[in-house]
């Protein structure tokens, strides 16, 4: 009897086809779990034993590195792995991205910014700032120094004007520190913050948004009520309290405040993004292809993973790239107000603040225009590049190839 055969087949199939999605072991997830367990073990070691759990490679991680490691694990599993697995979709999308002028420029800037921030410090070493080289103008510009007491011009001094040199392409600040180096370090701070919060926020917002939107009913109500409550808590105030009380400069580690900024915003600021993802999923839940997938016998898990999440991805990316540059701006503003890193954390905000407050008096801050203009310009370009990349990615990820 045919129906008997079906029942047997049903059992034979379900047990390992259904439960493991076609593989007996889903190794990327196993890898993620192993990584998370390893990270947790290292963290416990750090808290209980002290010292560094990464001593065997001679590395003492600053606290923000813990978030970056977590972000790296999640990024590998949910970012890089799907991209490599679906490379026949990823490669054309990348090609499309780089064939658009805005896409190529913003992606180019973001890639360089990430590279310089994450591996740059290993390869680039900076000279110590020489006080004797203070206030050098950028190359191709000149500064009137006739009346300035004890001004030492590194470049050519002619007719009372000091000309910039290639030794300091963007000039120097009042300590003789290179502005290029200030930008480099500001970029590191911004990228660390952006990457660690973006990935933590992205994963949390995606999970909460899809579950709420797809499950609906009570689950939806509970999750969204939680988001409502969370959104009434001002993350900025929590940050100020946490950073001041608990996670400041303990034990000489200087990036405690950046760590707490990333942590507090990563944990408290994903509500809006989750809400956007949820409303997107809500409209897709009744889409034909979701019903069609169920009509061919797909499980809810399969539908979520294969149809709901990939379709909600452009929405998530756009929402994230709107939120993250804002967070970088908040960090810069905090540093400018000296609420972020008291001890020269390298933030662009720090750089800006010190540019406005030159004690020597001989040169007004308007004479030293490069100290404010260049970091501001860099900040604008940084925020623009990350935001525009989001827009471009959304357009490129849309398989129809046109923005709506």
């Amino acid at each position, binding site marked *: 009897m045919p129906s008997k055969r079906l029942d047997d087949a049903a059992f034979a199939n379900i047990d390992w086809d259904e439960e493991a999605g076609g593989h007996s072991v889903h190794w990327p997830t196993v890898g993620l779990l192993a990584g998370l367990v390893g990270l947790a073990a290292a963290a416990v070691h750090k808290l209980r034993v002290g010292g560094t759990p990464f001593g065997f490679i001679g590395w003492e991680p600053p606290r923000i590195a813990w978030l970056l490691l977590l972000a790296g694990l999640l990024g590998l599993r949910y970012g890089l792995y799907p991209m490599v697995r679906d490379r026949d979709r990823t490669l054309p999308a990348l090609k499309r991205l780089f064939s658009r002028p805005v896409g190529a420029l913003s992606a180019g800037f973001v890639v360089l910014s990430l590279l310089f921030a994450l591996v740059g410090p290993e390869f680039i070493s900076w000279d110590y700032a020489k006080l004797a080289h203070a206030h050098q103008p950028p190359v191709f510009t000149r500064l009137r120094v006739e009346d300035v007491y004890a001004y030492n011009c590194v470049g050519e001094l002619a007719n009372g004007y000091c000309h910039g040199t290639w030794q300091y392409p963007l000039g120097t600040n009042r300590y003789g520190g290179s502005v290029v180096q200030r930008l480099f370090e500001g970029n590191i701070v911004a990228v660390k913050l952006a990457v660690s919060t973006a990935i933590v926020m992205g994963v949390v917002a995606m999970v909460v948004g899809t579950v709420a939107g797809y499950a609906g009913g009570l689950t939806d109500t509970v999750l969204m009520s939680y988001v409502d409550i969370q959104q009434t808590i001002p993350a900025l105030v929590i940050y100020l309290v946490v950073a001041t009380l608990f996670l400041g400069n303990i034990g000489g580690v200087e990036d405690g405040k950046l760590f707490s900024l990333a942590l507090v915003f990563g944990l408290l600021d994903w509500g809006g993004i989750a809400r956007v993802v949820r409303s997107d999923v809500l409209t897709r839940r009744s889409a034909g292809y979701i019903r*069609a997938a169920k009509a*061919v016998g*797909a499980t809810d898990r399969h539908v979520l993973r294969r149809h709901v999440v990939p379709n909600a991805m452009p929405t998530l990316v756009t929402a994230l790239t709107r939120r993250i540059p804002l967070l970088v701006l908040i960090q810069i503003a905090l540093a400018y107000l000296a609420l972020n890193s008291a001890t020269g954390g390298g933030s662009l905000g720090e750089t800006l603040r010190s540019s406005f407050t030159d004690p020597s008096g001989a040169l007004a801050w308007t004479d030293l225009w490069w100290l404010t203009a260049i970091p501001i310009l860099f900040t604008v370009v940084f925020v623009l590049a990350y935001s525009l990349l989001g827009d471009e990615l959304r357009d490129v990820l849309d398989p129809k190839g046109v923005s709506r």
Partner: protein
Amino acid sequence: MTLLSVEDLSVTFDAETGTVHAVSGIDFTIERGETVCLVGESGSGKTVACESVTQLLPTPPGSIDGTVTFDGEELTSKSERALREYRGGRVGHIFQNPQDALDPVYTVGSQVVEAIRLHRDDSKAEAKSRAIDLLDRVGIGNADERFHDYPHQFSGGMTQRVVIAIALACDPDLLIADEPTTALDVTIQAQVLDLLVDLQAERGMGILFVTHDLGVVAEIADRVVVLYAGQVMERGSVEQVFTRPSHPYTKALLDCLPGRGASATIDGSLPDPKAPPTGCRFHPRCPHAVPACERGDSPPFATVDGDHEAACILHEDPYELPATLGETDE
């Protein structure tokens, strides 16, 4: 053995403003190799009826009463997990709007492969070659190249062919086609219908075909089930129903067809599914209604001729059958 037998199927949805009676106690059967058409206006419960077979009802879930027997197995009591084996495995579904039925982020090929691999242990390469065969079979030229195209690169008719290929991915015994040609233009409609007829002849599957287009019914159906407001009004073979419509509703539907004399309309609209009329649900709109039509439950089926039945009290003794419902002059 009867392939699919639906008995006394009722589906209700609990809405905040009251209970919606989408389908109330309908019966029909499908044999292997047979095409049964569910016919009725929009909102008469056709889609809900065929989604109830494998309990694919949209959210919020409706509650299903009655029995659905597929190849000797009772389906309504089966678990979600067991039902998944039927969906796509033994019962294929085709939806009304083909453009919407394919996920825009995947190539059509990978969606056919997905449907295959949900039920078969094929390797990726096996599934791919099977998918290309299927696409080729449903009439997509250059199938191995078009395999890599996205849904938006296909026309409506071509997309519906892909959807049919997906429905056929695992050789279903029953194909449920929910208005598969409604969204297509007329020339493409005919091609898709021909394709379905060919595929049926080749594989001997039963087809449950939902439509409101009587022209399509005449083309494809073996038997017809006429639904109105969630109830069966008339059922019989396509010849019986078309040559001798025995329920005023069927008669009125046929009169609406262009080319059958003065084209007519049915006055009024479908009743509120939250508060269906007593007695015969069609009586408020029926030109032949007598006071008895409003009373009691729905009228029982009266045999017109063999398997041809109509749920109308005018076929019972004390009433005089209107001339238009008697023997036709043809």
